[in-house]
């Protein structure tokens, strides 16, 4: 009945440590729809790895409910839970392959657990090796494979049980940029062609941009902002989201703090607004200059998105006119608050 394949309701997780109770997750509500590629982004220690582990109950929530495909997982017996877990695969930063088994053996592993006959499992493993483009390494052991190849084997293993969901826990964090791109492309293909829901844990915005349609920003065990990736990229509401989406923009703002912190705006533009030289026209029409502080072009889910930080005229009246002009042209912009700049200034760069 529910379209939500995964639903966390009021999930709280506390750990007892020597130093006392640590709250890793605070009252998390999260709904993930079938077919989503849902990113969960946060800095290390934000609680994202714990969060993803509550989905398949590798971490049992202290409070709250976890539903998978409308079925309550919290409270199932170990046996029942294991049956449900076969519908949710997982891939890891460190790949977690069996070192003593070759590629085919690793891919067969979840099938053996599920009781699939050996010959059938081996045949499926070979097919899946084709899907991940690694046919020629069927009998290689993990120690003979590169990081990217290991993750491909892990992805094939994740696909073996025909799961409805794949949880990706920092799946590309141990890989170089080029390999990361190819793994992300593979995951994207799996999401699009097989309709498998992805839950993507990462600390890298690039991963979200290339792979996800939805995103939740987690900070100190709480989801502080969530929504459509495109939408959040245009107008991130919280400081945490802005920091993750525009890390470079913030750095660029910093050295100029002393000269002027007034009337800065961040513009986001796409194909619809990129055709016209809006800023140039604005300068000419209003006769007041703007200062360019930062500009960048990103590819977001296959579409080009640009962002720019500019400093409008110092006097309020002209600045208001400029803002009016931008609004009239349909350019999305957000004003950058002073405290946001100061905050970043404190952190500084080494």
């Amino acid at each position, binding site marked *: 009945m529910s379209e939500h394949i995964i639903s966390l309701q009021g999930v709280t997780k506390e750990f007892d440590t020597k130093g006392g109770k640590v709250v890793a997750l605070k009252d998390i509500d999260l709904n993930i729809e079938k077919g989503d590629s849902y990113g969960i982004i946060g800095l290390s220690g934000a609680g994202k790895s714990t969060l993803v582990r509550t989905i398949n109950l590798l971490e049992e929530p202290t409070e709250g409910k976890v539903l998978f495909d409308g079925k309550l997982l919290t409270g199932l017996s170990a046996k029942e839970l294991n049956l449900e*877990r076969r519908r949710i695969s997982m891939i890891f930063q460190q790949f*977690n392959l*069996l070192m003593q088994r070759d590629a085919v053996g690793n891919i067969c592993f979840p099938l053996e657990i599920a009781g699939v006959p050996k010959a059938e499992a081996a045949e499926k493993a070979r097919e899946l090796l084709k899907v991940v483009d690694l046919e020629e390494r069927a009998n290689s052991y993990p120690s003979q494979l590169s990081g990217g190849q290991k993750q491909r084997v892990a992805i094939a293993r994740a696909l073996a049980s025909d799961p409805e969901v794949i949880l990706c826990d920092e799946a590309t964090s141990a890989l170089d940029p080029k390999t990361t791109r190819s793994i992300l492309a593979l995951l994207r293909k799996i999401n699009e062609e097989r309709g498998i829901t992805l839950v993507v844990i990462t600390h890298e915005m690039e991963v979200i941009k290339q792979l996800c349609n939805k995103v939740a920003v987690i900070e100190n065990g709480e989801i502080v902002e969530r929504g459509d990736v495109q939408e959040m990229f245009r107008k991130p509401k919280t400081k945490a989201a802005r920091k993750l989406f525009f890390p470079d923009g913030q750095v660029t703002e910093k050295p100029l703090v002393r000269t002027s912190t007034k009337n800065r705006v961040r513009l986001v533009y796409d194909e619809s607004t990129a055709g016209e030289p809006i800023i140039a026209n604005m300068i000419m029409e209003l006769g007041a200059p703007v200062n360019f502080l930062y500009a960048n072009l990103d590819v977001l889910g296959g579409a080009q998105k640009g962002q720019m930080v500019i400093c409008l005229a110092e006097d309020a009246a002209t600045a208001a006119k400029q803002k009016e002009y931008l609004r009239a042209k349909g350019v999305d912009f957000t004003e950058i608050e002073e405290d946001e700049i100061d905050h970043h200034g404190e952190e500084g760069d080494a």
Partner: protein
Amino acid sequence: MDAQTLIRLLGEGTVQTLIMTLVGTLVSYLIGLPVGVSLIVTGPNGIKPAPLYNRTMGFIVNVIRSMPFLILMIAVMPYIRKVIGTGIGTSATTAALIVAAWPFVARLVEQSLLEVDSGVIEAAQAMGAGTMQIVRKVLLLEARPSLINGAAVATITILGYSAMAGTLGGGGLGDIAIRFGHYRFQPDVMWITILVLVVLVQIMQEIGVKLAGRLDNRLN
């Protein structure tokens, strides 16, 4: 003692020692392997934590391990005599070896299994593997090379125990060394016995290392 008698004596002693060692090791593993696995599984970070069992079993293992072998053997001999009818000879010694060695084997197994990457175990749990499946298909398989190396160490230690048991009428090479070498002042017999023991240890260690290497897919 003429050469022929000596050779016959040493031959018999070697066979007895090998029987005591191998049977002792085998039975010690029949007990120690499951116990070692259970200590890992029920440990604080195990896949099925059971603190009470874990602490109790850990305590029993420690108590037996803290006793020097000879003292333990003297302590248990009366009970062994009751059960199997004799307190001397190969079978009594083998029984004593097992009593002393299974906790050692359990700890060796525990150490080997600790080396298995916790991430791989987590991956298996995420796939919906049950406890026994994780034990058989992940823990024992992934730790195989280390378990084999451990088995070589265990066998050699038990060989040493069996030689010590010889001094208490246990038969085998230790018995020869003490009877001829010590009581009858025949140091040459003593040294030959030691030489045989050294060769046996070398062979066992070599077999262990070779086998562990051949069965380790991380290397080749």
